[in-house]
């Protein structure tokens, strides 16, 4: 499996990660190498194998529907990059 630098741009957009243009070829090479490596899986017939998502085969536990957390928003926002009136600030989304 060989990825081009434009594939890298597309994947990087999906992941919302800026990659410098002059590094895209390196990423294309390294990612293609990893995909070739994982392609070893294709040699095995797994048609009738049940996928394993979790080592313990657990289902998610349910807890009683009662409040278990108290309000800590000022503590959590004390480490935020930009906050005003208890709100996280980001660049303008709607013109």
């Amino acid at each position: 499996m060989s990825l081009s630098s434009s594939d890298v741009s597309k994947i990087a957009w999906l992941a919302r990660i800026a990659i410098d243009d002059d590094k895209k070829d390196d990423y294309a090479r390294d990612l293609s190498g990893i995909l070739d490596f994982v392609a070893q899986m294709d040699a095995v017939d797994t048609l009738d194998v049940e996928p394993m998502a979790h080592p313990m085969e657990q289902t998610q536990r349910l807890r009683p529907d009662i409040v278990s957390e108290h309000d800590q928003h000022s503590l959590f926002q004390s480490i935020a990059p930009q906050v005003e009136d208890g709100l996280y600030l980001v660049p303008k989304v709607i013109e």
Partner: protein
Amino acid sequence: MHTKTLAELSRDLETRSISSVELTRHFLERIERYNPELNSYVTVTAGQALASAEAADARRARGEATPLTGIPIAQKDIFCTRGVRTSCGSRMLDNFISPYDATVVERLDAAGCVMLGKVNMDEFAMGSSNETSWYGPVRNPWNTQTVPGGSSGGSAAAVAARIAVAATGTDTGGSIRQPAAFCGITGLKPTYGRISRWGMIAFASSLDQAGPMAQSAEDCAMLLQVMAGFDPRDSTSVDLPVPDYTATLGDSLEGLRIGLPEQFFGEGLDADIAARIEEAVNTYRSLGASVEPVSLPNMHLSAPAYYVVAPAECSSNLARFDGVRYGHRCENPKDLSDLYQRSRGEGFGDEVKRRILIGTYALSAGYYDAYYLKAQKIRRLISQDFREAFSRVDVIMGPTAPSVAFGLGAKSQDPIAMYLSDIYTIAVNLAGLPGMSIPVGFSSGLPVGMQLIGNYFSEARLLNIAHRYQQATDWHRQIPSGMNAI
């Protein structure tokens, strides 16, 4: 003091032949002396450590001490520590002061452990050499031109250099066992779910598991005793009673059935390491164990399956780092999209980006079945291989890593070569089984580790098997030269 094991220091504290303040001061002095060379600690919490030590001594005077009260340890910087920077080895979290404690930290604190500081690691635990850290590589105390392994490289180096009595680690594909092997210490990755993952920064949630790293199996047993247990805040925490891990350490190994998988001794294994493993297996024979071959026929597919499952889960977990709520934010974002992209582009290093991109690709429309679903099916096959093997033997033994510690920079430009240094450890995480690494000798002056793999929740038996070997040998008591000036 620093040459003693945690278990020995615990007894010294109990008999009052030392105080926690004395012990903590000694380790802080050693950190000051040796850490600049090793780069193991990224944060030293000296003031907090001395206050905890005083509190530990007072607690002991009141007769309320536990076996760990007053023992100075290091926390891997993946565990959230309230009021103390928790960087996860990343620029992304260089400014992150955690507002809460991880369960592991909370439990060790409650037992009276003294935290000396936070130790270095591969960025977001992605790496096998500790070279992907934003804070630079850690050096192996046995030879400072070599890597300590990773991702818990800072933990392993700190214990090996005796600048911490013990340390915490995490293991997603070998990150406790491989650095334990490279640094000549004892490390245990418990069964998936045995220790709470709450407050442990997530990499691949179906594989991540915390564990102790220390001088001996006995030390690991004492730490696991406190770290293990059900935690309702971790939805995959297993609700099973915690056995007394120290009570069975001395049990006889008479009749123990050891399985040696042929796949662990094939091409790619260093001949010297194979010889050390054989010697260790012979020691077990003399302790009453029998040895038979077993087969793990899908073993060679574990690294390929892992490098789909782990990146897929990482791409999802690391989506939370957005430059909005905490962590790194780029300068002057022109719009929201630019804010996300540049904050993440600047905050993450190359290996983390590679894994997020691979995971994003593997989970993208049209590729899910070919990659993620396929890898989950392979995961099933690997887990069945172990099940079959454990119907015949009690423990599987083999090398922890195919080589001893390699040189700094030797593999950092070649992702696949780096991935292959975890070739013997990855399968254990895919299956969710417990595994250990114990020191079994040296090759070219560098430690060799042997891996012990047990069935689900057999930690007590694994610790017993490791402890009996350590009673018959002294590899775990070796200390790197040049670390004994004070």
